[in-house]
């Protein structure tokens, strides 16, 4: 009984971060659901021991990553596997201490520094999932212009966050 309670607690504490990690690796939301579930079931298959939150989190990430690689192989999709280490390092750097809250806070502030046009393009892309052509149409630009605008906006956001977020 106590074990079940521990597992429920582990799921409660780690599921959101694990799901976001899988999305970050490249899973769509449905695949992230499935792989999160599978990762926790793998955890359930083995005797639980008291671990620190960081250790458990690292174990879950590694298992989730392996599950993701396995799913990619099954679907014969080619992904740059070697870049997953770099992705993982970036994730740990940004999420290790606060689940990325500081990063997202910096992002909220940095979004305010964008021009209205750039912010609108970002909103259209992420809120409405608009295609580049749709964004271009709505902003009265050609698709290449929209591509450049989005690229610049993201560059500005990244630079701004690095200034605010990194020591």
């Amino acid at each position, binding site marked *: 009984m106590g074990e079940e309670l521990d597992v429920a607690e582990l799921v409660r504490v780690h599921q959101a971060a694990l799901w976001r990690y899988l999305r970050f690796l490249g899973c769509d939301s449905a695949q992230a659901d499935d792989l999160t579930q599978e990762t926790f*079931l793998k955890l359930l298959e083995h005797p639980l021991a008291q671990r620190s939150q960081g250790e458990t989190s690292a174990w879950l990430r590694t298992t989730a990553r392996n599950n993701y690689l396995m799913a990619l192989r099954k679907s014969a999709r080619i992904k740059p596997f070697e870049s997953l280490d770099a992705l993982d390092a*970036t994730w740990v750097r940004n999420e290790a201490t606060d689940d990325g809250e500081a990063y997202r806070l910096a992002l909220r502030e940095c979004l305010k520094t964008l021009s209205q046009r750039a912010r609108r393009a970002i909103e259209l892309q992420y809120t409405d999932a608009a295609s580049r052509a749709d964004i271009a149409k709505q902003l009265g630009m050609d698709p290449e212009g929209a591509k450049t605008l989005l690229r610049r906006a*993201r560059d500005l*956001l990244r630079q701004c966050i690095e200034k605010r977020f990194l020591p």
Partner: protein
Amino acid sequence: MNEDADMRYLDSALRQEVGGEHAPDLSARIAAASARSISAGPVRRRITVNFGRRAPLGAPSKRRSPLAAVIAALLLLVAVGFVGFAINTNREPHPFRDLNEAKGQPQPAANATSPSNETPRSPQPAPVVVPHPTKVVPPAIEPEQPRPEQTPKPQPLPEGEVKKPDGKPAPIPEAPRNPEGIEVRKPEAGTGPTKKPEVEAPALAEVAVVKELSRKNALKARYAESESWRNVEAGEVLNQGVKLSASGHADLSLSRGGLLRFSGILSLSLDGALVADLGSEDLYVDNLDAPAMTVRGGGVSASVQGVAMFNVTRTSLGIACIQGEVVTAQGNLVAGKSGTLSLKGLSKVQAVNIETLVRKHASLRSLPQRVLMREDFDAIPDERIDEGSVSKGVGVSSENPAGVAFYLPKPISLRAGDVIRFRYRVSRALEEFLVQLGTADRGNFRKLLTPARIGEWVEVEVALCDLVRTLDRTEKIAPGTVFKTVQVWAHCPQACKLEVDWVEIVRRPVDG
């Protein structure tokens, strides 16, 4: 710091902050799956990731067929009956027993100790015959069992460390696979002792990708008659066996190279070559320099390698060959000829050109353009970069002369109608600006261009047949020339910056 990873993390954060994406609460789902896993008994059950409901078309979801259960039950009955029959047969007086005994051959112990050979035994299966639910997987297809050393277990790690945990979950942990990589699903407890594990069908081969639609919701697809039609969007992968219905027209990029544009009903399958079954209306094919494909319709079929237009009736297939050749059992059509193919033969052969086809077919009013190559500099491998560098999805050079050059993924053979397009920007006034294609054996061919506005992105299109040899400008490039590199050069009085956003080589149909 890895810039790509940083941008990806930013992308992920933007999805959450701007797009409002949140991780769902999966507690109940995990608890339910966990309960199912525990109730499955002592055999460790592999929890499969079921992507079936969201998989791309053609990736069949792994469903346990009711037919399999019926077959398994029948097999059980046959096995039980056979065992019972065998037992009873052994218990009947053997006509040659005495002879065998006389020869000193050993008799089965059961027979020797049987109180009465005449009493038929009811054909109940002996306990040793009926397999236990935990041993239902036949040894021949028993997947490798999870080994203790494969078992991922949380091990102490320094805080935040991301190395694989001890007892690490291997990249393919516990996936029961046979040597061919076909996944075998274990039967669940209580589903019958003789139920055979279901073998997942291999994934269907990809045949095409939806390139462009004439309007929204113009294309619907399904893979079986029992399925309902569903809308397909540009970019979606189509697998063999797909049946398509287009209102307006739809352009498909073929996986083996080539372009299809069709309206009406079309099925795509593989029979060695790609086979397109045209159910209604018309189909435009451009598979020059790609493998031949078969077009069927109206009860006849033709093999095409070139540019051709087909339109189908109930009993015939109209064919117009623009480039290349269309081969039929009743005769061939060369470039510039059209005809009607039916079971009676090839008839009404006459001259045809693109202009007449465009007048006749509404779907050709905007001529299909086959993109032979497109480079966005988003994911180009370093080894394909010949000159300049790539930064943030743009090819860049700041030298003098400034050049952005790259190797094509595969060589392209020049045809009439091929054009190169690219988008560029220069930081200063230029002395000379040119696009140049490199060949394997005949040097470079170039076209001098007039540099446009400084500091602004400009899109330019050049007909490849206008290129001349760099070392002998009187020599024009000839059709059939195979080129392998694309180069854009800017010569400046001082150092200047050249940026190239994308490059594409497009083939337009021309009269052959």
